[in-house]
């Protein structure tokens, strides 16, 4: 068997294992899904009137604010889902079965690839679910073309891939599930200090550069541009650069951690 087909076959076996875990024990995934949905409902129905006033100088109402926050929440959903990835990777690494995999003549990377692909699929499924809730409460795209929808979808998938690799690295570097959950907290915090809920311009001046150039804001602004026709500007390139950079970083980090002798 060639190296590539070995890699594909073993990775898909590992993927099936991870999906089986997710299907059999869906509570973790569902819990993580709850956060973005709760935030969506909270910000729209509880804080919505005040928030929308702050966004566009008043008068635009609730539907405009729904349009404003849904792209951010879709990306936040990814951040939230991959926290689960970090936790399940770190839990998995403490299991004896991983030691067994290491002593088998299988493709070395398949354990990690299985986690990554499984996590990206879960992220995408979660995004679709949160998106459906968004649509149900009134989110509509303003004249996005099929190509723009496709690009939006690709951006979400790429972002999910990038954050997943980072989360896998965090999971590998954490000795247990609690530590993994703590280490992955930035992935929940970052969207809160991005342009997801309020525009960067509404933040204090000293904080604006942080909010503007962290990974979530460019991705959110690009998604807004694609779905709502707002200005994308340099955010498109920034978003793609962040995604590629984080993917490479997360991959190298995870691989180095996996190749190290286990304790």
């Amino acid at each position, binding site marked *: 068997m060639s190296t590539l087909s070995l890699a594909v076959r073993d990775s898909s076996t590992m993927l099936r*294992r991870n999906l089986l875990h997710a299907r*059999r024990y869906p509570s973790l995934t569902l819990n993580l899904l709850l956060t973005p949905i709760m935030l969506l409902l909270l910000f729209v129905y509880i804080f919505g009137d005040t928030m929308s006033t702050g966004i566009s100088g008043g008068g635009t109402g609730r539907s405009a604010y729904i349009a404003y926050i849904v792209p951010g929440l879709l990306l936040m959903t990814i951040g939230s889902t991959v926290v689960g990835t970090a936790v399940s990777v770190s839990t998995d690494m403490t299991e004896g079965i991983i030691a067994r995999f290491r*002593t088998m*003549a299988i493709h070395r990377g398949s354990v990690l690839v299985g986690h990554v692909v499984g996590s990206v699929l879960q992220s995408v499924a979660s995004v679709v679910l949160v998106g459906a809730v968004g649509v149900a409460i009134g989110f509509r795209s303003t004249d996005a073309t099929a190509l723009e929808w496709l690009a939006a979808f690709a951006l979400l998938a790429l972002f999910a891939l990038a954050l997943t690799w980072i989360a896998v690295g965090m999971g590998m570097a954490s000795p247990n599930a609690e530590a993994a959950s703590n280490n992955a907290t930035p992935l929940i915090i970052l969207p809160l200090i991005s342009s997801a809920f309020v525009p960067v311009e509404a933040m204090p001046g000293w904080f604006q550069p942080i909010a503007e150039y962290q990974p979530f804001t460019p991705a959110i602004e690009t998604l807004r541009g694609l779905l709502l026709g707002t200005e994308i500007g340099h955010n498109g390139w920034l978003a793609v650069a962040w995604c590629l950079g984080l993917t490479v970083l997360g991959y190298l980090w995870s691989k180095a951690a996996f190749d190290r002798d286990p304790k």
Partner: protein
Amino acid sequence: MPTSVMPTSRSGDGRTPAAAVSAVGLRKSYGDKTVLDGIDLRIPAGSVFALLGPNGAGKTTAVKILSTLITADGGQAQVAGHDLAADPQAVRAAIGVTGQFSAVDGLITGEENMLLMADLHHLSRSEGRRTAAELLERFDLLDAAKKPASTYSGGMKRRLDIAMTLVGGPRIIFLDEPTTGLDPRSRHTMWGIIRELVSDGVTVFLTTQYLEEADELADRIAVLNNGKIAAEGTADELKRLVPGGHVRLRFTDPAAYRSATSALREVTADDEALSLQIPSGGSQRELRTILDRLDSAGIEADELTVHTPDLDDVFFALTATTVPARNTRNTQPEETVR
């Protein structure tokens, strides 16, 4: 400094069987703690080898290195004819490993664990199902096959673990303390399983803390102490190194005690406890000699116990200069005859 009492490898008979595992000067340390301090091994194909040692002796580290889980700091080793460092993937293709801590996926069922192994060995779907079903039956796990492995008892987990190890038909199997933590019945089941593997011609490398277990299963035993092989040989060869096997007779009647003392030779008498110690390897013949003498003198002991040498004795025999004198009476396993 412990010395190697027996030669490590047999030679001179012209045809030495091919080695399934051979190692020269394996070393491993974590920080300043040296876990393996240059061990040499040679295990003929088709034999059972036991690495015997207390907790922390380095047994697990040796298994981890030889099964490619971790890398050695020094020395070299071949497993199934492949060099560990140069071609670990070829080694992995030839071996099966059951570690000390259960290597089953607790979140999925026993059957799913087996099918996972079949997939990773690239068996076809039908072949995988057949192999899984066969092994589940062989290890008496069919009833539990549809239950999550996390609900299994310790013995069942161990059996599933070994069943998973056997999926690819490995020719060399590493078993790291396969019976630690098992109840006596499960332990005997496990011994039966290991004997069955051997009858299929598989080479077995096992680690254990129990001399009895090594004695039951292994063709050759190496005693690992402080990261070094302190002695290597067959069970009998090792036991010959160990003094301390004896029969102990206890009396309640001082008169019987006194007449027994004079009827038996070579006894160590303990007047206060009314007990006698007679050096003995514990064989049937030796016991009969003692019993015959007692019978012909018309003496009946109230209790007779056979003390067999154990791992401790082997260690104390091998490291006598570094260890203070010990009380042999309280630390040996006792098999009460009556």
